[in-house]
């Protein structure tokens, strides 16, 4: 670290830390959906990344439509909602066609959803082409915020962070305060009892799965503001997302938040001191190492098995 003054170093840490926050936002948005699907329901959805891509492409389509009518500045909030709805719909169909037949065979779900992810990737490639696309960015998302001369924080990163906080709060509120969230937790914790007290567990399952997919769709919409989207974009994040959920403790949403933060910051700060690939290797090795010592993850819910 020769040649940096103290204030320069501070700026580096601030900016690198903020780059980590962007990664954290994407990982957390992805992981929130997966924490519901995998953590709560125990379904391994290898196609989760593709649901994010669905959201990203939906945003792209809306932005090109908005571009024709000159509404580029206003389409984005609509895009978030539509992305959610599209991913929710596809998730709903997936649960009906595929997942519901496989609840008793978790390893087979893994293979089937992997097959689904391959098919979706090919559909993206056929429809949108193999090249990466970026939607037109509204003016208010461009530019950066400069608290001091040396620190330069991009607005889109701040926006995604805001969206992440909002969505996380909403999911937590939904799961712990709403009527439907209570039903969902009841079903995942004790299916037979939930059925006995009159909850339609099949419907709850389908809704839960679709909700997780919908959140992935929102992650996709947010993702378009910081990077471009290609057919395989989602699959690049799927292993990391699973690691976030497992590392945090599968059944704990707070664990998911903490582990997304830890993984993203570790990777992004190490990236400054070494190559990106080594930073990734070390981060993942650390996570795997911790999981070998503590298989239940950082925050575990005590359950009787």
């Amino acid at each position, binding site marked *: 670290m020769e040649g940096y003054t103290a204030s320069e170093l501070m700026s580096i840490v601030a900016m690198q830390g903020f780059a980590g926050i962007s990664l954290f936002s994407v990982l957390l948005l992805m992981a929130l959906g997966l924490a519901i699907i995998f953590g709560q329901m125990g379904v391994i959805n290898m196609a989760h990344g593709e649901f994010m891509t669905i959201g990203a492409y939906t945003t792209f389509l809306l932005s090109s439509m908005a571009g024709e009518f000159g509404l580029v500045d206003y389409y984005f909030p609509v895009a978030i909602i539509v992305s959610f709805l599209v991913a929710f719909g596809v998730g709903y169909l997936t649960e009906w066609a595929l997942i519901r037949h496989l609840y008793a*065979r978790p*390893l087979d779900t893994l293979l*089937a959803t992997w097959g689904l*992810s391959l098919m979706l990737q*090919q559909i993206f490639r056929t429809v949108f082409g193999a090249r990466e696309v970026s939607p037109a960015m509204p003016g208010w998302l461009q530019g950066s915020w400069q608290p001091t001369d040396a620190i330069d924080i991009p607005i889109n990163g701040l926006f995604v962070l805001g969206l992440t906080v909002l969505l996380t709060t909403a999911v937590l509120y939904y799961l712990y305060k709403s009527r439907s969230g209570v039903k969902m937790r009841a079903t995942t914790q004790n299916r037979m009892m939930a059925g006995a007290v009159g909850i339609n567990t099949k419907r709850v399952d389908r809704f839960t799965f679709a909700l997780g997919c919908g959140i992935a769709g929102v992650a996709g919409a947010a993702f378009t503001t910081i990077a471009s989207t290609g057919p395989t974009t989602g699959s690049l994040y799927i292993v990391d997302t699973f690691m976030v959920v497992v590392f945090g403790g599968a059944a704990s949403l707070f664990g998911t938040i903490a582990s997304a933060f830890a993984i993203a910051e570790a990777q992004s700060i190490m990236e400054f001191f070494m*190559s990106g690939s*080594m930073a990734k290797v070390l981060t993942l090795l650390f996570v*795997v190492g911790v*999981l*070998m010592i503590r298989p239940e993850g950082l925050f575990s819910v005590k359950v009787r098995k």
Partner: protein
Amino acid sequence: MNFFMQRMMGGKEGAVAFVIIAAVILVLFPLFLDIFRLNLVGKYLTYAFVAVGLVMCWGYGGILSLGQGVFFGLGGYAMAMFLKLEASSPEATAIQSTPGIPDFMDWNQITALPWFWEPFNSLPLTIIAVLVVPTIFAFFIGVAMFKRRVGGVYFAIITQAIALILTVLIVGQQGYTGGINGITDLRTLLGWDIRDDSAKYILYFVNAILLLGVIMIGRFVITSKLGRLLVAMRDREDRVRFSGYDVSAFKIFVFCLAAMFSAIGGAMFTLQVGFMSPSFVGIVPSIEMVIFAAVGGRMSLIGAVYGTLLVSFGKTYFSEVAPELWLFMMGALFIAVVMAFPNGLAGIYQKHRSKVIALGRRLCARVPFCPTYRVGAPRPSES
């Protein structure tokens, strides 16, 4: 002899299936395929080693590893390192700024052979490395996971992460591993040119015989008491544990065995194809190998070989004819196998077994020297 029939072949029916696959691999393919296609089949058969290993640890042991490419890659890279050092003699690499080291090291400004490359100057050490390094690696993963009773889905996800880590590491450390291109331009094995046609024939047969040997070892394990314990453990782990068995030891054993099989396949892959790259290590090839086993039938060692051949042929064929269709079909295949044919080809055979056997007997009865020739009427099948 009886021991051999029962334990290595799996009874009479198993022996017939074994003879058929041996005939297909050793006689049919070499007779009817030109050397280019035969070499391609040889490449597919190296994947079958992994698939056979997966039948052992996934079908029988219930442990789904999504990181078998790691072991395939370790075996393949060990062999490739030996061949690369042989191809990088000081005379052959005289134009480099440091002669005598592999070309990609020279390109990356490395001036001396790294220590972990040194053992690969000797063939015996390399063969030991092919067999031992992946097995020890599997042993450590197995001990860490199974002793803590991590299994099922978590094991699958963590092995997948390990596959990702190894791929990123290989690609990132270009100077030591050849990076994304892998280790290429391999020419000779102890002065024997592995690229000419006669060498390809010999390597094909070596590979085929090794594969048949691996199937026999697999059969031996499955028909032993250990094999029955594996199935019991897969279905009711706690009962086996309460009966006083150390469940994790069996799991570690079968996982190590599968890893060693994969490594042999990897080494044979390098010899036949002439290079090794990270694209055979990562998540995608690892999952593809699972689908080979699933298509063949997760409970059938021989089915795994047919499954591998079928899917690989399909992949090659469709990538030539309609590349955009292939990924779609592969995805559909995953879903179809899981939803409609959970026991794969072997399951379809089992369903129509009596018909197939009757047909076989009828055909066989017309051929002299066939065991059923003199019997005439079909005997009731034994099972």
